[in-house]
């Protein structure tokens, strides 16, 4: 369970302060698929980054499974981030010098899993996402939809409890976008993952169990 209460975040930029989040209060249950909707600049990515322990907040309270995250040391934060969360981004973030298989296997390195075991973990995921036949391709040789499916496989390889997706269909045409959101929804349900997905597109948000809107840094 993730619980945010009155979370605030102000960026100190070169051009002055920006209040990215004024009051973000929400609660996400385990196994729930929640969509966060809002216009460009309303604070969606900021919120997702805070949820995923990628960024710090300035005020309010954030509890993960009951424990407060305020006093976490950097190292503890990094461990939590790796073990609890999987990330999917709009622009895929695949490493261009690795093939599909090794991109997906990458997070396993940190878990000190022996290399021999990689295949047993990675291949079923590639199959699930319909990209097993592409395992030796480089990211540059894939379509956008295939790249995103690779990124989704990578986000799941550590078996995280929570999947965070920031505009995962933002760089895809509507057909590929639909394939990707259907895959995400199916996987989320079958693997009982919590999924928090950010989008400005109501069509994509409609796949969720619940939709919340952010306007001007406030969760409505």
């Amino acid at each position: 369970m993730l619980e945010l209460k009155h979370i605030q975040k102000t960026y100190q930029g070169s051009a002055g302060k920006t209040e990215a989040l004024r009051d973000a209060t929400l609660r996400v249950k385990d196994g729930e698929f929640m969509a966060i909707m809002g216009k460009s600049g309303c604070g969606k990515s900021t919120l997702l980054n805070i949820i995923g322990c990628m960024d710090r907040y300035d005020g309010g309270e954030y509890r993960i499974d009951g424990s407060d995250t305020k006093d976490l040391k950097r190292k503890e934060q990094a461990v939590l981030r790796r073990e609890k969360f999987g990330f999917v981004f709009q622009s895929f973030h695949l490493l261009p010098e690795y093939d599909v298989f090794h991109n997906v296997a990458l997070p396993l390195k940190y878990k000190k899993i022996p290399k021999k075991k990689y295949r047993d973990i990675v291949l079923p995921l590639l199959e699930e996402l319909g990209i097993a036949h592409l395992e030796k391709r480089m990211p540059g040789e894939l379509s956008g939809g295939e790249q995103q499916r690779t990124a989704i496989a990578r986000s799941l390889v550590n078996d995280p409890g929570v999947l965070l997706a920031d505009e995962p269909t933002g760089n895809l045409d509507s057909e590929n976008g639909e394939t990707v959101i259907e895959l995400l929804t199916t996987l989320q349900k079958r693997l009982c993952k919590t999924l928090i997905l950010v989008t400005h597109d109501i069509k994509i948000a409609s796949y969720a169990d619940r939709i919340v809107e952010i306007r001007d840094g406030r969760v409505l």
Partner: protein
Amino acid sequence: MSVQHIFLALLTESDLHGYDLKQRYDQLMLHETELNFGQVYSTLLRLKRDGLIVLNKPDEEDDKKTYAITERGRQELQNWLLSPGKGSLVMCDSFSYKLAAMQILDTSMFLRIVKEYRKQMMEEMRRLTQKKLGTPKGQTGALLLLDRSILKLEADIVWTGKCLEQLEKEEAENA
């Protein structure tokens, strides 16, 4: 009213009881609107009065009443299907009437209603999307009907976003 015509369409397939007509109607409308038995009865009465259907003679083993479509009924169904429909194709839902009234009410009321509708429509869009996901791929007609409802909702949701932006700007300027 269109219930009559859906009954006529159903009766082109086979003669049916009132109860079957209700069941099949609800199915075709994807259970989004369901008929009560009062509506079934009054619709059948009207169709019979206008000579569009007839009541079959109850057969011996089965004493339930079944209805059959007449030649006039078939003609009426054809006319209905091919006629363009009267009046506006869009300004005919209850939301349109409320919006029309909003033109003479104040902005804060307008804002409140649009926000409320936006929430409801987003929830409705979510519900219909889930329904679509649960509908087997072979049911083309049902899927297309759902697609249409979803697209219409999407248009209205995008519109409410625009609306809120505009009205909030005006309200801020006037404050």
